[in-house]
């Protein structure tokens, strides 16, 4: 395969930049609900794309499924692209890379039988279901995926890598009359089958939380001091600052560039935020990004000052900054765009307990349902929370959605604890590309005066 790609990559002769990606995906999904094997989906998927930047600087992208006839596809791209209008786009060029990275999994899920996978799920489902008669639905979902990716580009790079991904999710729905509560949690990783074994405790916890939510009161809306747990703080930084650090949101917006000038103070001095696609075994990691650029660490915020942003070849070239290895695609049907990899708030000095001590009446928000952003606005939902009164954690509350404005909220983080950890579950959507693995990391953090949605208890 590599030899074929090497020949093709030199076909464009007029200064074009070209990438060819070929990809094969083997996947299994199993869903067990209320003791029934509701769904088993096994599949193989193969395809690829040719992406070409014309000498006049506009992009041509063609995705396909058959690997044969690649030469014709490349020739079609060269010819078709010559009809596109001029856009003046340029990309960073790099020295060629040759690399082949194979993955060795401890307990390779490709060699597990469907029977092993299904019976494990049935057992988890039994445990979950037995937690309480109030659970109307107990659902266990398993998925594994193994990708083989070939990438060749005009730098002369030829890269092969493998990307395993595995996940297990528990979803419990508890019901009493019209009161219905759903709780979900799970594990995910770039690892083998060992990740999903011995998760009986998690199954139990999910069932118990769903039942507890039935009893919990809704948190009254208003403005509060809030402590975010590491999971939610990670989602917060991803939504509140990560997306705005993706240079394709600002590279052609002169006003936004002024707002996002490097060296500008954007947050309180306790805040340090980075993105790192080269950490061992996290789901957002890979040796190279999908444009063949080595991944690495980029500090977005250092001591409260804006210190960097995330780039593709195109945005780095236009903004005349270093390329950072953040061009990612969810698969062969889509071109790589600027994305986060593993994004985190660095741990601080404060102990977790100290974050709560001076809060008179506030909210401790825990775990997440989701998050969303629209430039300066962002919102994220906690799975549940606890009332904080006089520095103490009190009763459990639900329906916790936090919202804010980037320009005001980052400055409100006034304390960062020393209990950093990564969260691997969850994916990010942008530009129609959904479910990209983007782990987040953080310790507990405290925010002052945050807007929380909900009804006033009047």
């Amino acid at each position, binding site marked *: 395969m590599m030899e074929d790609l090497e020949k093709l990559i030199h076909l464009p002769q007029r200064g074009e930049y070209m990438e060819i990606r070929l990809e094969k995906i083997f996947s299994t999904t199993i869903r067990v609900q209320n003791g029934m094997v509701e769904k088993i989906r096994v599949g193989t998927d193969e395809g690829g794309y040719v992406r070409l930047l014309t000498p006049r600087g506009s992009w*041509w992208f063609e995705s396909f499924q058959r690997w044969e006839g690649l030469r014709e596809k490349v020739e079609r791209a060269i010819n078709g692209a010559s009809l596109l209008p001029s856009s003046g786009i340029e990309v960073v060029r790099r020295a060629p890379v040759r690399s082949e990275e194979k993955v060795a999994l401890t307990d390779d899920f490709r060699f597990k039988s469907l029977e092993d996978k299904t019976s494990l799920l049935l057992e988890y489902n039994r445990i979950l279901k037995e937690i309480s008669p109030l659970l109307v639905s107990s659902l266990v979902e398993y998925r594994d995926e193994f990708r083989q990716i070939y990438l060749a580009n005009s730098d002369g790079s030829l890269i092969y890598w493998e990307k395993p991904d595995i996940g297990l999710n528990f979803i419990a729905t508890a019901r009493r009359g019209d009161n219905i509560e759903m709780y979900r949690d799970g594990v995910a990783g770039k690892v083998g089958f060992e990740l999903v074994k011995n998760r009986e405790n998690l199954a139990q916890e999910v069932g118990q939380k769903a039942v507890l939510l039935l009893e919990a009161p809704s948190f009254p809306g208003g403005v509060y001091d809030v402590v975010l747990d590491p999971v939610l703080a990670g989602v917060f930084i991803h939504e509140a600052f990560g997306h705005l650090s993706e240079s394709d949101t600002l590279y052609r917006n002169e006003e936004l560039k002024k707002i996002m000038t490097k060296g500008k103070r954007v947050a309180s001095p306790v805040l340090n935020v980075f993105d790192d696609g080269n950490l061992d075994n996290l789901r957002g990691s890979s040796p190279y990004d999908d444009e063949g650029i080595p991944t690495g660490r980029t500090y977005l915020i250092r001591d409260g000052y804006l210190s960097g942003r995330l780039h593709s070849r195109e945005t780095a070239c236009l903004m005349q900054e270093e390329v950072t290895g953040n061009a990612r695609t969810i698969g062969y049907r889509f071109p790589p765009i600027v994305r986060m990899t593993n994004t985190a708030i660095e741990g601080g000095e404060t102990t977790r307990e100290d974050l709560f001590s001076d809060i008179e009446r506030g909210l401790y928000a825990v775990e997440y349902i989701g998050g969303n952003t629209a430039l300066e606005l962002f919102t994220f939902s906690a799975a549940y929370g606890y009332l904080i009164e006089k520095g103490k954690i009190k009763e459990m509350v639900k329906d916790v*959605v936090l919202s804010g404005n980037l320009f005001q909220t980052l400055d409100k983080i006034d304390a960062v604890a020393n209990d950093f950890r990564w969260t691997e579950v969850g994916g990010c959507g942008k530009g129609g590309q959904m479910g990209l693995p983007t782990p987040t990391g953080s310790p507990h953090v405290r925010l002052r005066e945050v807007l929380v949605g909900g009804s006033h208890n009047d």
Partner: protein
Amino acid sequence: MIEIASLLKKERIPGDLFTHRVFSQEINYEANSFQGYEKEEREGYGLRVINPEGKLGFYAFNHALDPREALNKALEVSNLGDKVDFSIPSYPSTWEWEDFVDPRLENLEVQDMLELGDYILSRIRGEYPQALINIVISAGREEKSLLNHHEEELRFARTFFGIGVSANQTKEGDILEVYAERSWGNRDIDIEGLVQEIIAKLDFSQRVADLNSGKYPVVFTPSGSLVLFIALLYGLNGRNLVFGRSPLEGKEGKVLFSSLFSLEEAQEPWALGSCPFDDEGIMTKTQRYLINEGKIESALWDLWSAAKRGINPTGNGFRSSYRDLPEPGFSSLRVKKGLRGKSTLVGELEEGLVVDSVLGLGQSNIASGYFSCNVQLGFYVKGGEVQGRVKDVMISGNAYQALSNIKEISRDNCWIGGRILLPYLLVEPIEVNI
């Protein structure tokens, strides 16, 4: 792939092969300049079988595969599947339907798309020269087919056309972005309406208005009212009903919502999603009520959930891709419109909000109907006049309660994603936090 159907027949294994073929092309503009062209061709197969013990198996692939190998893989899966209570349907040979294919879209040239993009760009920039405009124009054709173990075949093709436009204005401390889209099965998209919508949204947004927390009447625009429909569609989903996860369980035939509110599923020829049969080969109805004057008439049933409930399927088994098994979904929906103009609804607001889009859709407890969202684009109205755009405001409430609190529905309506025809809804009260 007919060989697979023949093999199923020969082996007496009930099953169906779903095929999905898509050709699409797209152009993009970013920050007022042409960015690139994208083209895609894809095709995939999903083979579903019921083995002699009555257990369900499934295998998906998108490359040439020996029929025997595909069948063996699906049968291997079926050994671990659960027994199902439905059978693979036959397709009566008397069915007749039309494809909805617009040749103008099949033969659309890049040049045609570029002319359209340039026109939209120049129109909006004519009014707002400083705005940064992004445009996505896509067009293509899709074809779905089903082949069963009787060697019967169903095939349906449609074209699609979509234009999405966003306009951005940025200044220190305030980033404004407005969005509008039109999608349809043929070339006849109202470009003028799209351009006017963007310009009107920019006009209303130039001033930022302040308001206090409290309970207000809210006019949800067609795109804004999605916040209420996400929960309702979850509740009407047959599988959620079967598993007791829906609050609408046991509520069929009961009046739960405002008598002004009727929701129907209807086959509107060029609407995206509308189709003669669902992805399981069950014929869709030309028109049927899900909610009629506030009363729950029916729900969304695929073969699997209908069989569990012991009722007939409603033609609502849809697959998100060839790789997925069918689940309850819908073809094309519309909410019955009212009598008065949208401007009257707004003009009669003493004090309230217009909500056009929210951030955080589906991120609250959709099972209970609770929502709490940031207003992404919304306007404060006082004395019947739009005072300006609201910022950093949250709305919250319960979608089911809000649907029972509908006070008025407009006669103006608009297709969302070319699939759901929605009017403006006046709901009172809605909790607003700032």
